[in-house]
C-alpha cells in the first residue's frame, strides 16, 4: 500500500516537473519570437527615420492617384489620445490624402469628432453621397465605429424585409429581385452606412486585426499593421502608402 502511494506521489511530482519543463520551453520559444520582432522593429524604426529624412529616394514622390479613400483603425484605448490622432491627420494632410475614415470599436473617435474637426482647420465631415461634390482642397473625414458594421447590416436587412413583405402577397418568386448585392448597397446607403470602400486600411494597435470595420466595405482593401499609435512614425506612414501604390490587384481574375 505504502509502495503504491509512494509511486503515485513520485509520478505526480514527475508530472509537475514535466509540466514546468514544458512551460519553460514555451517561454523560451516565445522569447525567440520576441527577440526577432524586437530586432525587426529596430530596423523599421531606423528605416522610417531614413525615409522621413529624405535619404531613401524611392519614397520621395508618392503617386496618390490610386489612394482615393483611406481608412484608419485605431485601438479604442489609444483613440483617447486625441492629440496623437490629430497629429496623424496632419501628416496625412501634408502627404495629400484627401478622404479619410477614422474607425475605432467603441466610438471614442466619434465622441472626439468635435475636438478633431476644431483643431484641423482644413477638414470637414464627410457626408454620404458627397463623392462628386468633395472640395478638393479640404480634407473630408468620416467617423465610424462597430455599430456601423453588423448592426447596420441588420437595419438594412429590415428595410429589405419591408420590401419583401410588400411583394409577399403577389404571385411569383421575388427573392431574386430583392435580395441582391446592389439592393443591399442601396439599403445601407438609405440608412447612412454606405461610405466608399477604402483602398487602404491602416491599423494602429497591438495586433494586425481590423477590429470589426464594416465588413461590407473591405472586400478588396489592403490592410497594413502600423504598430501602436504611441509609436507612430511619419516614415512608416510614407512607407505603407508607397507600398500600397505598388500593389497590383487581379480582383479574382
Amino acid at each position, binding site marked *: 500500500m505504502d509502495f503504491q502511494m509512494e509511486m503515485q506521489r513520485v509520478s505526480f511530482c514527475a508530472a509537475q516537473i514535466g*509540466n514546468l519543463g*514544458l*512551460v519553460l*520551453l*514555451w517561454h523560451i*520559444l*516565445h522569447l525567440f*519570437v*520576441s527577440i526577432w520582432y524586437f530586432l525587426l522593429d529596430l530596423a523599421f524604426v531606423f528605416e522610417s527615420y531614413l525615409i522621413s529624412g529624405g535619404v531613401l529616394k524611392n519614397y520621395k514622390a508618392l503617386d496618390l492617384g490610386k489612394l482615393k479613400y483611406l481608412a484608419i483603425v485605431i485601438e479604442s484605448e489609444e483613440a483617447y489620445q486625441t492629440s496623437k490622432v490629430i497629429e496623424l491627420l496632419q501628416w496625412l494632410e501634408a502627404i495629400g490624402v484627401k478622404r479619410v475614415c477614422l474607425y475605432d*470599436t*467603441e466610438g471614442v473617435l466619434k465622441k472626439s469628432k468635435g475636438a478633431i474637426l476644431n483643431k484641423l482647420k482644413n477638414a470637414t465631415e464627410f457626408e454620404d453621397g458627397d463623392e462628386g461634390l468633395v472640395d478638393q482642397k479640404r480634407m473630408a473625414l468620416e467617423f465610424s465605429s*462597430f455599430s456601423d*458594421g*453588423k*448592426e447596420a*447590416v*441588420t*437595419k*438594412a*436587412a*429590415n*428595410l*429589405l*424585409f*419591408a420590401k*419583401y*413583405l*410588400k411583394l*409577399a402577397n403577389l404571385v411569383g418568386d421575388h*427573392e431574386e429581385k*430583392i*435580395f*441582391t*448585392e446592389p439592393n*443591399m448597397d442601396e439599403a445601407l446607403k438609405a*440608412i447612412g452606412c454606405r461610405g466608399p470602400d477604402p483602398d487602404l486600411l491602416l491599423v494602429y494597435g*497591438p*495586433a*494586425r*486585426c*481590423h*477590429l*470589426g470595420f464594416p*465588413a*461590407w466595405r*473591405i*472586400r*478588396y*482593401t*489592403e*490592410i*497594413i*499593421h502600423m504598430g501602436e499609435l504611441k509609436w507612430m512614425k511619419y516614415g512608416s506612414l510614407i512607407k505603407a502608402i508607397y507600398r500600397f501604390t505598388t*500593389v497590383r*490587384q487581379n*480582383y*479574382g*481574375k
Partner: protein
Amino acid sequence: MEKTSGNTATRLFWSIVSFLRRCLFLVISIRPIPRHIAFIMDGNRRFAKKRKMMDGDGHRIGFLALMSMLKYCYELGVTYVTVYAFSIDNFKRNPEEVQSLMDLMQEKIEGLIKEESIVNRYGVRVHFIGNLKLLSEPVRSAAERAMAATANNSRGVLSICIAYTSTDEIVHAVQESCEEKLDEISAMNASGAGYGLIKLGGNEEDERVKIVKLTDIEKHMYMAVAPDPDVLIRTSGETRLSNFLLWQSAFCYLYSPSVLWPEIGFRHFVWAVLKFQSNYFYLERKRKQS
C-alpha cells in the same frame, strides 16, 4: 538489400521528424491554441510561373501543401479549418482555367470520400461553403456526396469555401432570415395571432421596427457551422481579404507571410500559431468587449 535498408532509413528519419514535431506541438499547446484557422491559398499561379510549369501544376502542388497544413492543424489540435478554394470572382478567369480548376476540385473532392483520406483519418467532417448552385452538376454532386459521407465524423471540421464571397454570404443570410420571418408571420396570422403584422409593409414606422435580428442573420450564414476564425493566413504576401470571411474576422489575427501557397511549410504554420499566442489575450479581451 540496399533498397530495403534505404527505405528503412527514410522511414526512421520521418518517424524521428514526426516525433520531434509532436514534441514541439506539446510545448506549444501548453498555452491556448487557435480553435479555428482559415487559409487563403494564394500564389499557385505565381509558383507555377516561377518554376516554369503549367498553371494547372501549380494548383496540384498547392493541393499537396493544403494536405500538409491540414495534417499540422489536426495534429496540433485545431478543431476548425476553413480554406478559400474558389471565389465567385474567380469565375471571371478564362473558361479553360475555370474548367481545369473545377476538374481538379472534383477529382480531389472524390479523393476526400475515400476511406484512407485525411478527413477520415482525423475524423473530420467536411462542409462545402458557398453558393453551390453556381457550380456545375458533377462538382456539386461530388461535394454533396462528400458532405454526406463525412457527416458522422466529429473530431474536427473542414470548411471548403467554393463559389463563395462574403458579400454573397451576407445577402444569402439576410434572404434566408427574411423568408423565415415571413413564414413565422404567415403562420401566426393563420392561427389568428398575427395582430395584422403582415400589414407592416406599407408603414413608415418600418425603419424603427426590427423584426429581423442580428442573431437571425448570423444563424443563416454559411459559416454558422464554425465559430469565428482565430487566425487567417493569406500566403504570397498580399494584405487584402478578397471578400473572404469579412463578417467573421472582426477579432481574428491576420497573418500574411510572403511565401507562395505551394511553398508553405511547417515553420510558417508554427510561426502563425506563435504569433496568435502573442496576441491572444489582447484579441480575447476585444472579443469579449464587443
